[in-house]
């Protein structure tokens, strides 16, 4: 374990002790204890910037399951460092914000911060791990933490709905991704991303290339809320606002972006990757921005806006992957898309983070987020209004803020595409900049709606539930102010990021493009002259304003009235179908009658084994090598068979117990005959204890009723019973014969030879139990313990008033 490993798991460690802080330091808000950690981590990771900006990487390895090629390898390059800085930096600000947002008296802060730290640790794990399986594990932990945080106010029905939805969708994606990772392993024989990239020829030449790519992309798209999986994100807004700002705009939803960026070096350069990622991204961008303008809830607007911005970054990564097709080194024609993606990723985290926080402040102070009820807050909440204005102007793409710069780069990248002349881009390529431009118009429009509906117009105190609306406390404003300042700072001086964060990240996304020692040329500036991008921005401003000013007209339309995405019907319908289907299966399967269960199990075994025997023709009898049967064995067998056959004909319970007891004791006798004292002893004791148990259980049961005789059903039961017995007999005889024919050594020889030597015991039965197969035994006693507890729960915790069965 190195320092880097400890840093990665430190949030989990802190999460263990947080409940105690909450319990014993009631007077201090638990958030203060939490905040120290991301702050320290942020400073630690900042100190690593010189390493990555000089093109170095840090690799730290700890074996986990080396036999399966799963190692806890951590890997810091430009891309992962950018993400850990986002995670810890935004994390610090969000925790600071939450200290003022969540009351230390009313809220269960222990739960909140445990989940939040769990998320933070998992997210660090996702972006730092080099091993795909480790990434997968952390990936699922982020899904779980996200669901727990969405349902933090679990008494609200909407919260649990949103949590469940996000869980279903992201875990579905996670499982697909695991499938994709496995296929990558099949192709390359390693789970290490670095090694896969080094052996990328094995992947590109394989028939599994496309399936692996699609499965991995399903994971990335569900996590990053890409169309049509985006529907979980708006419902995730039921989470407390600090969570929305942190997980659902700045970090977790970018995990999919991270994965796509990371695997560009593996899949990039193919037409499929280019088109799937680009089209999904652009569709998401368009769908999100159009959906956002019809939302009335501030957080819903931001949710759809996040969806759309994630689509923007995704489409840039798709377009940028063409760099691998050309492989011409630092040719800005191809790499500008990756530059734009990385830059916009940072910008989005700053402006969207601040916007979520101001939306939270408005909600906190006015009690509502409905833009129809809000208005005129500019004079009442001047600081909040200013921060919002900066954030929204940046998101809308206005100079001099950072959003303007990355949006110009976005247009440049989309315009460049038309010059590629590959992947049918000469015909369809022109659609890309057009879609990008139209989506930007809608983005501009909803930014206007959000600002003017909230802060200008008439203040409507009668619509609000709170008496006195005022500016938020200073502590709550610190975080959004810092983010707002960053928006301005990165807008005015974008080049402070250029070679510290952006270039190393680009080099990490596109390894192998540059010659060793080369760097990408990153020069971001406001004025390019009168280029198409500038005119596109003019168009966005004019048409966006037009949409806003005509809002009165189109707000009457059905488009504006509806808010819910139509894809929710698919989800809800699918969910209802799943529940109905599961209930149907359960009704058929769980009848509550032991007899039915036996019929199912036995018929299944008969069918499977019977089919296998028929299909592979494996019946064989070898009678040559059998020992003679002693006369007393005939006696034992006849007693055995006779008592078994008589059980169904006995009509009182005591009789049944006694006869099954006889069966058990005869089995014990057989063990004695075949010289297995341990088994015989165990069998005897089990029989003894079972008889007592049966007696006790039957004391509670009603008298055996005479069942109406149904000849056909009885014949069916007879068939099952005889069939089961016959099949088992055939299988064991054949197995014995075939084992002899194939020359398999009996497994008991190994135990006989090694019991003394390896385990120091003469009794091989016991040695097998405690040593050779110790894990089996451990799990068996676990099952035994669980069974005992189940009996206690069934009987002692029975619902009052329910009928005794």
């Amino acid at each position, binding site marked *: 374990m190195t320092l880097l490993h400890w840093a990665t798991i430190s949030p989990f460690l802190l999460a263990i002790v947080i409940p105690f802080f909450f319990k014993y330091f009631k007077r201090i808000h638990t958030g203060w204890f939490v905040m120290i950690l991301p702050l320290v981590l942020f400073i630690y990771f900042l100190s690593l910037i010189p390493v990555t900006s000089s093109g170095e990487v840090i690799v730290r390895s700890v074996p986990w399951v080396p036999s399966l090629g799963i190692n806890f390898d951590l890997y810091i390059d430009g891309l992962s460092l950018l993400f850990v800085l986002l995670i810890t930096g935004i994390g610090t600000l969000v925790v600071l914000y939450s200290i003022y947002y969540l009351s230390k008296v009313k809220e269960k802060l222990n739960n909140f911060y445990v989940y939040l730290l769990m998320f933070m640790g998992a997210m660090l794990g996702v972006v730092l791990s080099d091993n795909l399986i480790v990434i997968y594990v952390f990936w699922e932990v982020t899904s779980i933490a996200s669901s727990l945080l969405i349902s933090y106010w679990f008494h609200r029905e909407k919260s649990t709905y949103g949590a469940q939805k996000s869980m279903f969708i992201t875990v579905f994606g996670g499982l697909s991704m695991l499938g994709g990772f496995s296929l990558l392993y099949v192709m390359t024989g390693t789970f290490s991303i670095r090694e896969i990239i080094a052996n990328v020829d094995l992947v590109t030449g394989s028939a599994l290339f496309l399936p692996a790519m699609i499965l991995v992309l399903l994971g990335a798209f569900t996590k990053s809320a890409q169309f049509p999986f985006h529907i979980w994100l708006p419902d995730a807004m039921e989470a407390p606002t600090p969570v929305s700002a942190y997980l659902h705009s700045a970090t977790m939803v970018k995990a999919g972006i991270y994965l796509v960026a990371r695997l560009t070096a593996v899949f990039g350069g193919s037409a499929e990757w280019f088109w799937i990622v680009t089209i999904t991204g652009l569709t998401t961008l368009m769908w999100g921005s159009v959906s956002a303008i019809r939302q009335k809830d501030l957080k819903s607007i931001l949710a759809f806006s996040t969806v759309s911005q994630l689509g923007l970054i995704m489409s840039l990564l798709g377009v940028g992957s063409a760099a691998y097709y050309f492989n011409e080194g630092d040719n800005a024609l191809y790499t500008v898309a990756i530059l734009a993606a990385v830059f916009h990723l940072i910008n989005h985290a700053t402006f969207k983070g601040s916007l979520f926080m101001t939306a939270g402040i408005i909600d906190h102070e006015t009690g509502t987020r409905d833009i129809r009820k809000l208005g005129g807050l500019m004079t009442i909440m001047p600081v909040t209004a200013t921060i919002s204005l900066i954030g929204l102007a940046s998101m809308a793409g206005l100079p001099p803020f950072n959003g303007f710069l990355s949006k110009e780069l976005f247009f440049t990248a989309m315009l460049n595409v038309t010059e590629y002349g590959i992947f049918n881009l000469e015909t369809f390529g022109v659609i890309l900049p057009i879609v990008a431009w139209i989506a930007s118009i809608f983005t501009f429009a909803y930014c206007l709606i959000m600002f003017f509906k909230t802060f200008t117009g008439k203040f409507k105190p009668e619509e609000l539930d709170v008496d006195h609306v005022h500016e938020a406390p200073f502590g709550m404003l610190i975080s959004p102010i810092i983010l707002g300042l960053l928006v301005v700072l990165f807008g005015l001086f974008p080049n402070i990021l250029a070679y510290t964060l952006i270039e190393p990240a680009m080099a990490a996304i596109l390894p192998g493009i540059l010659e060793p020692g080369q760097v990408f040329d990153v020069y971001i500036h406001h004025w390019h002259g009168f280029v198409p991008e500038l005119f596109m921005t003019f168009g966005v401003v004019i048409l966006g304003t037009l949409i806003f000013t005509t809002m009165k007209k189109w707000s009457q339309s059905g488009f504006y009235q509806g808010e819910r995405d139509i894809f929710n019907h698919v989800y809800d319908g699918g969910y209802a179908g799943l529940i109905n289907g599961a209930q149907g299966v359960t009704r058929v399967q769980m009848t509550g009658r032991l007899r039915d269960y036996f019929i199912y199990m036995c018929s299944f075994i008969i069918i499977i084994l019977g089919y296998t025997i028929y299909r592979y023709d494996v019946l064989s009898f070898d009678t040559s090598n059998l020992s003679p049967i002693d006369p007393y064995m005939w006696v034992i067998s006849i007693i055995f068979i006779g008592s078994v056959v008589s059980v169904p004909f006995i009509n009182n319970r005591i009789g049944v117990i006694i006869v099954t007891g006889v069966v058990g004791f005869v089995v014990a006798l057989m063990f004695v005959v075949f010289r297995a*004292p*341990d088994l015989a*002893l*165990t069998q005897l*004791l*089990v029989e*003894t*204890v079972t008889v*007592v*148990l049966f007696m*006790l*259980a039957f*004391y*509670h049961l009603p008298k055996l009723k005479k069942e109406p005789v149904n000849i056909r059903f009885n014949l069916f039961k007879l068939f099952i019973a005889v069939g089961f017995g016959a099949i088992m007999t055939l299988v064991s005889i054949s197995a014995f014969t075939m084992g002899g024919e194939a020359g398999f050594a009996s497994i008991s020889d190994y135990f006989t030879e090694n019991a003394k030597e390896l*385990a*120091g*015991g*003469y*009794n091989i*039965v*016991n*040695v097998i*139990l*405690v*040593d050779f197969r*110790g*894990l089996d*035994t*451990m799990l068996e*006693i*676990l099952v*035994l*313990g669980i*069974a*005992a*507890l189940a*009996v*206690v729960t069934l*009987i*002692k915790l*029975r619902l009052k008033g329910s009928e*005794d069965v």
Partner: protein
Amino acid sequence: MKQKQIKSNDVMLQTFARILILIILTFSIYLLLAGHNNPGGGFIGGLMTASALLIMYLAFDMKMIKKAIPFNFITMIGVGLLLAVGTGIATMLLGYPFLTQFFDYFHLPILGEVELTTALPFDLGVYLVVVGSALTIILTIAEDDK
């Protein structure tokens, strides 16, 4: 409860039970310890102890038994599981795979040459879980008179 009504004055049963339980318990502990080299082991020992205790429950009334066995069988399951898992984890702390068992021969005062194994605490865990589970199940069903 049915047993209560039958047993209260059953002198014969109680007298025999006292002797029987002692013998069975002793034998069950012998089985537990002998398991490594002779027939026996945690499962068998546990079942035998359970049957000894069952005789006790059949012969005496609850008040007396509560005094004689002042612990909870559910806790016993937990202790047993912890012991079994703990033996496995202990070897992990020394850098061996989970559940690696060790044995060696020691010369102890009075007892002489003795083989000590890490399998014994593991088997003891099995023993405790078996006794705990068997009695928990039986007593829960027996005490249920609703």
